[in-house]
């Protein structure tokens, strides 16, 4: 949590500075503009997780959203009244690092033609990294002078993907709960590592919703929630029992011209 707290403090400081600058700034009204270019930079936190934690996960021992940066640009077109449309290209990194304690969690460790498959009870350290280019297409609605609400679908193209982890301090029952048990220790060589990066889909779909909150003429802050509607794995990939959805929130700054 301390890392999140630190990030929050930084975000708060930046926001305070912006608010201060706003006090001396020009009129933020931009209603006359038809087309705007918006450059954004943000920090994302969230998780790639099942909707509803399966009962085989007994506790979440650590959850660290690792440095997840969003940067990109949108083109915003004002249409009728307060309505508009916005599309862009964002670079995103949706990463996380979680540690859980499991009881009878189905897993499979595959390397080449060898594989261990069964039910794992013990400690799992999971790392997910998804670097992607995202194209959001959003409907925008101005709510007053400063705030714009936006909602719409997005498609992401993955540039780099990693879904790997370590199963340690526990045991695996091969196949099912009556299968032979193999104990796993707390250091390399005694634990099992797994890597399902290759099974991850190259494309993700989802919906995003958020607000742009203009602080000064060219500066604003933004929030977004990106809710993945497709799992991160191919449907045929059964090893990870639950469908994992990337659900991330972004807070950041934007400049508009």
């Amino acid at each position, binding site marked *: 949590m301390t890392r999140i707290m630190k990030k929050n403090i930084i975000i708060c400081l930046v926001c305070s500075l912006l608010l201060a600058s706003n006090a001396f700034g020009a009129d933020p009204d931009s209603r006359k503009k038809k087309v705007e270019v918006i450059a954004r930079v943000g920090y994302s936190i969230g998780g790639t997780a099942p909707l509803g934690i399966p009962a085989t996960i007994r506790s*979440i021992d650590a959850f660290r959203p690792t440095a997840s940066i969003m940067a990109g640009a949108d083109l915003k077109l004002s249409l009728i009244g307060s309505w508009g449309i916005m599309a862009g290209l964002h670079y995103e990194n949706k990463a996380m690092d979680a540690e859980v304690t499991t009881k009878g969690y189905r897993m499979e460790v595959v390397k080449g033609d*060898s594989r261990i498959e069964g039910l794992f009870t013990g400690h799992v350290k999971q790392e997910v990294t998804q670097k992607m280019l995202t194209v959001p297409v959003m409907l925008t609605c101005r709510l007053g002078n400063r705030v714009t609400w936006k909602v719409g679908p997005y498609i992401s193209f993955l540039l780099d993907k990693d879904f790997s982890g370590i199963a340690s301090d526990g045991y695996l029952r091969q196949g099912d*709960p*009556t299968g032979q*048990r193999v104990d796993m220790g707390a250091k390399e060589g005694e634990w099992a590592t797994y890597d399902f990066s290759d099974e991850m889909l190259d494309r993700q779909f989802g919906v995003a919703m958020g607000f742009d909150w203009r602080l000064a003429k060219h500066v604003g802050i933004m929030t977004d929630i990106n809710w993945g509607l497709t799992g991160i794995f191919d449907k045929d990939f059964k090893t990870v029992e639950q469908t994992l959805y990337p659900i991330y929130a972004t807070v950041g700054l934007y400049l508009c011209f």
Partner: protein
Amino acid sequence: MRKYLSIALMFAFVLSSCIKDELPNTECDIVSAWVEGEQYATSFYHPSQMRHDNISTAEKEIVFSVRSLISLPKSLPVNFTITEGATIQPASGSEQDFTKGPVTYVVTSEDGEWKREYKVTFKEATMPTYKFSFENYETIQSSSNYYHEFYEVDQSGTHHNIWASGNLGAILIKTNSKAEEQPTYSTPNGYAGRGVCLNTQSAGPLGEAFHKPIAAGNLFIGRFVPEKVLFEPLKATEFGRPIDRVPIRVTGYYKYTPGPVFTDMEMNKYPNRTDEASIYAVFYRNKDNEGNDVLLYGDDVLSSPFIVKKAEVATLPPTSEWTRFEMFFEGNEADDVILAAQGYSITLVFSSSKDGASFEGAIGSELLIDEVEMTFENTDND
């Protein structure tokens, strides 16, 4: 400002708040089994034989070694500890008659979905035979894999699973494999009838990742504990079983072909080294001075201070013809009192790679074994 903080906290909250209630246990193992009571102690050579505290999850039969089946009480309670929440039928501690053969116990998991059957048997503590022709084997299924398990039959027709192998470790990383694809299996091409084929295999990329890149074929008198293969592989092999006589010699027939490339634990190649097979036997004291059980493991089977005598075949030159081997026990004299109290154990070990226990050897090495026989002091063999 509060908005950002709350977003940051949201995920942690969402994730931690939806931990579901723990599901009932799905496992259904017998963890330990024991007989208690003074009235039963006389049936055993030693109180430690009245308990099995480390029952492996691979075991389907729990054997109590007794002095004699004839003097065994007709009704006897065996107690069990089983997986938490599981149930056992017949009940733990219920009186059963073991003199007519095995009694089958069924353990049902707490959630009621899974069952395991165990046979509990009382057997006389003697070795069933000293002539090993390797004609008897059983094909066992474990998950989607199959493997062979060798057993011996005594004069009354009772099966004794005195032989163990590392097959249970090798199949861990396999799926849908046949018994003949394992490091240790029964071959129809023995010296006489069937024999044993031991071969050193690659443990695949996964084995390499665990720094256990090869699996040597092995067969030994003792027990293999698959739980330990990753954690402490040298403790996975438990050598020996009690014997009531003093061995002199072991003879048998072998064929050996070393694999082409000798490698170590990290798969480094050694062009100048040729793999070697190993055949040895160890006769050791199975109790320390305080009367505690002594077992030999992969790390001390040839070096333990409890070893009384050992026999090793000095060299096993590669040969594609059945070739006779002979080895003599050397060491100290055995004590008759200890012998009478079942205080000695014996193991006989065959491996297709001499240093297979430390994952050194050549993939492809193959050792065939058949018609092995032990001879003893002061006894008419046969």
